């Protein structure tokens, strides 16, 4: 019989309810309790407990020593008052573990439970780490809608930065889009665009906000401009409040590689918008319908096509 077993029965089961029983009855009850306890103690590590047997044992226990109305806080306080000397003598947890290592019966209770708790902690930490490292990819989803005046995305699966690193926006200039993408850690396959003949790269500007980055490349030809913008979002609030100007006509939808590309006409320009992952892409310029289709198609050259 372990110390643990005795103290548990004395403190938990052999309370005031047993005092009014006859001596013989008390002995019988103790024998039954001992039997149940021994069965529990003797079960092998990792052994499945028969739930029916467990419930039966608990029913017997309940019958023999019904639990009174139990106040956990009051009981703990009472225990502390009665056994304060014992509590003061308690060794640190690591010493307890080694001391109990030679105590074979309570081994399962004292060694397995911490392992399980540790497993749970490791699981939660792993999930948090994976999320923070981007192993679990956060996806931003949005549906397009438009009125006669504006085109916008309504976010249906949001991104949120709970504690953004708040700073004033930083405006940088780069020599190429690829350099900027690399610097800001934006991985994308949607930037290999074949622009209409004659357009050449002019400049790349970046605005870094606390919760998003805007990369804007300008291509020029005969004083005409094509502006290609990539918004990389960590938080979708900026997207929710973004509006693109348009004429009253409906948006045209081009589906390539399973992605919807929305084409809207502005006064003198055409705007193509699409969302992939956590990025919003937008191309604006004075295009014809044919040029828009060619540009969109060019993005996906080399992709495995699963157009729908």
């Amino acid at each position, binding site marked *: 019989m372990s110390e643990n077993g005795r103290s548990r029965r004395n403190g938990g089961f052999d309370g005031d309810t047993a005092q009014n029983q006859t001596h013989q009855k008390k002995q019988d009850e103790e024998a039954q309790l001992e039997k149940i306890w021994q069965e529990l103690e003797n079960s092998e590590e*990792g052994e*499945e*407990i028969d739930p029916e047997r467990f419930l039966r044992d608990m029913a017997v226990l309940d019958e023999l020593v019904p639990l009174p109305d139990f106040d956990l806080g009051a009981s703990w306080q009472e225990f502390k008052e009665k056994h304060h000397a014992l509590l003061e003598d308690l060794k640190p947890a690591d010493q307890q573990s080694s001391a109990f290592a030679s105590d074979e019966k309570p081994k399962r209770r004292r060694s397995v439970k911490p392992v*399980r708790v540790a*497993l*749970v902690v490791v*699981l*939660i930490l792993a*999930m948090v780490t994976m*999320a923070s490292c981007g192993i679990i990819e956060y996806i931003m989803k949005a549906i397009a809608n438009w009125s*006669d*005046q*504006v085109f916008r995305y*309504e*976010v249906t*699966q*949001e*991104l*949120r930065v*709970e*504690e*953004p690193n*708040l700073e*004033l*926006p930083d*405006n940088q200039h780069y020599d190429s889009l690829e350099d900027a993408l690399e610097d800001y850690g934006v991985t994308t396959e949607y930037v290999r665009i074949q622009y209409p003949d004659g357009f050449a790269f002019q400049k790349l*500007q970046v*605005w870094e*906000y*606390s*919760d998003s980055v*805007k990369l*804007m490349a*300008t291509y020029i030809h005969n004083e*005409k*401009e094509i*502006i290609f*913008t990539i918004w990389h979002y960590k938080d*979708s*609030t*900026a*997207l*929710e*409040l*973004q*509006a*693109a*100007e*348009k*004429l009253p006509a409906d948006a045209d939808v081009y589906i390539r590689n399973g992605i919807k590309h929305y084409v809207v*006409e*502005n*006064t*003198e*320009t055409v*705007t193509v918008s699409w969302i992939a992952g956590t990025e919003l892409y*937008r191309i*604006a310029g004075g295009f014809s319908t044919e040029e828009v289709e060619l540009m969109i198609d060019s993005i996906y050259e080399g992709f495995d096509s699963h157009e729908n």
Partner: protein
Amino acid sequence: MKTNFSRMIAVLCIITALFSLSAFASAAAPSEEELSPQASAYLTDYTAWAVRSSNHEVYVYYDVTATKTIGCLGAKLIVIEMKDGSDWTAVKTYTGTTSNGMLILNNNGHGGAKIYQGTSGNQYRAVVTIFGGSSTTNGDSRIVTTNTV
């Protein structure tokens, strides 16, 4: 025991997932934009939004993309509003100029921010007038009301 442990793991996974979802779901609802009923020769898109720091600083961000390189673009006016019962009261106004950086000349994109020191227990938002034009006076204005923080 194994069954209980498996259940515990499953419950923890569900709780973790719910926390993640609730974090995403704690968004402020997008505000209505008050927009002029026409397209623009100067503006392609624009946005303005607010973020609140732990010490109640209200960061109001704005960003605008022009259709091409134009004479002037940016934020012409930022009005910080504080919620007063069911009403909103203006508590601070920033007027955009090229010298304070809210407006920029001869570019096709611009973005910036203003910081307002709020106080605990109050809610704030901003009404931002986005502007793009051939000069500081000739162009198109659009008004965006940010999220509430």
